């Protein structure tokens, strides 16, 4: 863990202290009309303390603790996803395999650095195995719809999320600062973007971007939030292999993926008639509500970083493609 990384942790703690103090003062002064908003703000801040503590400790201990943490996050997210998506009694065996065998196996592959298999295990092997097991159950009603739901759950909740600990195993060219700062960069950018969009939205947000999908997303909130996040990301670049403008571009990709990832998960949620994925994190909803913006951002960030900064993870394309993509 490099020195810049420690400073970033200190900055996060300072931010949390500020939020807690502000929340305390607001709860003293709030009129009856503002009370629910302040109570929600305080519940969110308290949950942030817990999440930052868990993430910080995990990063400190390194590779295997990250694998275990994200394995548990995937488990909880998949649990919320499958709970809301109706499956029949005959799907019980396939769900058992998904939760207790495929999911841990994926994280085991990440843990032992078997990148080659971890990056195709779910989209190839699990995606073939799931319909095969369902076919053995003999049920044909809604066959494709239910198979697709289970596969989509495995893809977003397990495969995409497993790219976060995979970042810890990515070899980076000319860099000796460890990989923890990269994972920190991804998580901090995506979460900061959520928080700043929420704050700017409450302050200056008027025009709704997607009123049917996500009524809290406003133009002012989104633009203000992303702009603030980009500034933050250039600051965080000190602890990463990125220079400031590279960090800003990476942050832009993370924010965009987070924005659309959030919208897509929200569309699924609305379709299922739910407001939140669950109720396990106070003030935030479920685990899925907290990590929806990371689902799409994690694999994109992993592969972009691997392509431009990694050494020999992805198979190399012909030289002319390198010239076009500017590596």
């Amino acid at each position, binding site marked *: 863990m490099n020195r810049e990384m420690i400073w970033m942790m200190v900055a996060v703690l300072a931010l949390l202290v500020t939020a807690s103090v502000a929340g305390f003062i607001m709860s003293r002064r709030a009129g009856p009309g503002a009370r629910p908003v302040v109570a929600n703000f305080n519940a969110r801040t308290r949950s942030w303390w817990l999440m930052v503590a868990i993430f910080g400790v995990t990063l400190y201990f390194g590779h295997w603790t990250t694998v275990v943490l994200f394995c548990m996050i995937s*488990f909880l997210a998949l*649990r*919320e996803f*499958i*709970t809301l998506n109706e*499956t029949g*009694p005959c799907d*019980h*065996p396939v*769900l*058992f395999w998904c*939760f207790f065998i495929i999911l841990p196996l994926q994280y085991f592959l990440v843990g032992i650095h078997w990148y080659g298999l971890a990056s195709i295990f779910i989209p190839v092997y699990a995606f073939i195995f799931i319909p095969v097991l369902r076919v053995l159950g003999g049920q044909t009603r809604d066959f494709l719809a239910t198979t697709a739901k289970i596969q989509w759950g495995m893809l977003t909740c397990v495969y995409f999320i497993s790219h976060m600990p995979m970042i810890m195993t990515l070899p980076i060219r000319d860099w000796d600062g460890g990989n923890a700062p990269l994972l920190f960069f991804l998580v901090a950018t995506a979460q900061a973007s959520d928080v700043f969009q929420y704050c700017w939205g409450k302050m200056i947000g008027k025009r709704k971007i997607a009123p049917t999908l996500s009524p809290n997303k406003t133009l002012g909130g989104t633009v203000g939030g992303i702009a603030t996040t980009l500034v933050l990301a250039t600051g965080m670049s000190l602890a990463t292999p990125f220079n400031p403008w590279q960090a800003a571009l990476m942050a832009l990709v993370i924010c965009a993926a987070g924005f659309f990832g959030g919208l897509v998960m929200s569309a699924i949620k609305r379709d299922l008639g739910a407001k939140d994925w*669950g109720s396990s994190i106070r003030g935030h909803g479920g685990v899925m509500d907290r990590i929806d913006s990371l689902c799409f951002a994690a694999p994109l960030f992993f592969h972009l970083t691997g392509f431009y900064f990694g050494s020999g993870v992805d198979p190399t394309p012909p030289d002319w493609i390198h010239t076009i993509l500017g590596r």
Partner: protein
Amino acid sequence: MIADLLSMWVRLATGVSARAVPGWDGRPCVFFANHSSHLDPLVIWAALPAEIRRRTSPVAARDYWTKNAVRRWVSGKVFHAVLLDRIGRPKDRSHPLQAVFDVIESGRSIIIFPEGTRSPDARLKDFKAGLYHIRRRFPGCVMIPVSLHNLNRILPKGRLLPVPLIGKITVHPPLEPVDDESREEFLKRARDAVASALPEDKCHE
């Protein structure tokens, strides 16, 4: 102690928890619920607030809960289940629900499943008359309808291992006592109360 730990684990594993029981005043209660999984008695028992849980016995199937040493120990020593035979009448020609009557008489509450058996597709079946007999015999006890969601997906009929989905419990206000109510009227009222919190497609057979 073990009971508290077990109930905590069940609440954590299934996500089912009832913070409060509206209308509970210390009298023995009859909690009655829809039945779709062997987990149901355990889950309702675990979800109840501790002071009620300690005085509540679930009614459970004897063959399932005495099958091995672990189940026997859990049903007998931990949640003090009232075990009922699902097949045949008692040899001594006593009332089939005599064991249940004895428990209520001793001042404990019970958890019972008036459909009589687990519904394989989680659709609510018609209620058997047992609930009405309990009502007639103990006019003073509080009848509390309970609706369980998703438990049949966690452990469906005929499966051995549960999957970790999130269940939900709705504890309704007690049924109001109505004078001169016929058996059919009472059972319909009880069934409607349980059905009121279930999805539309689970309310009819």
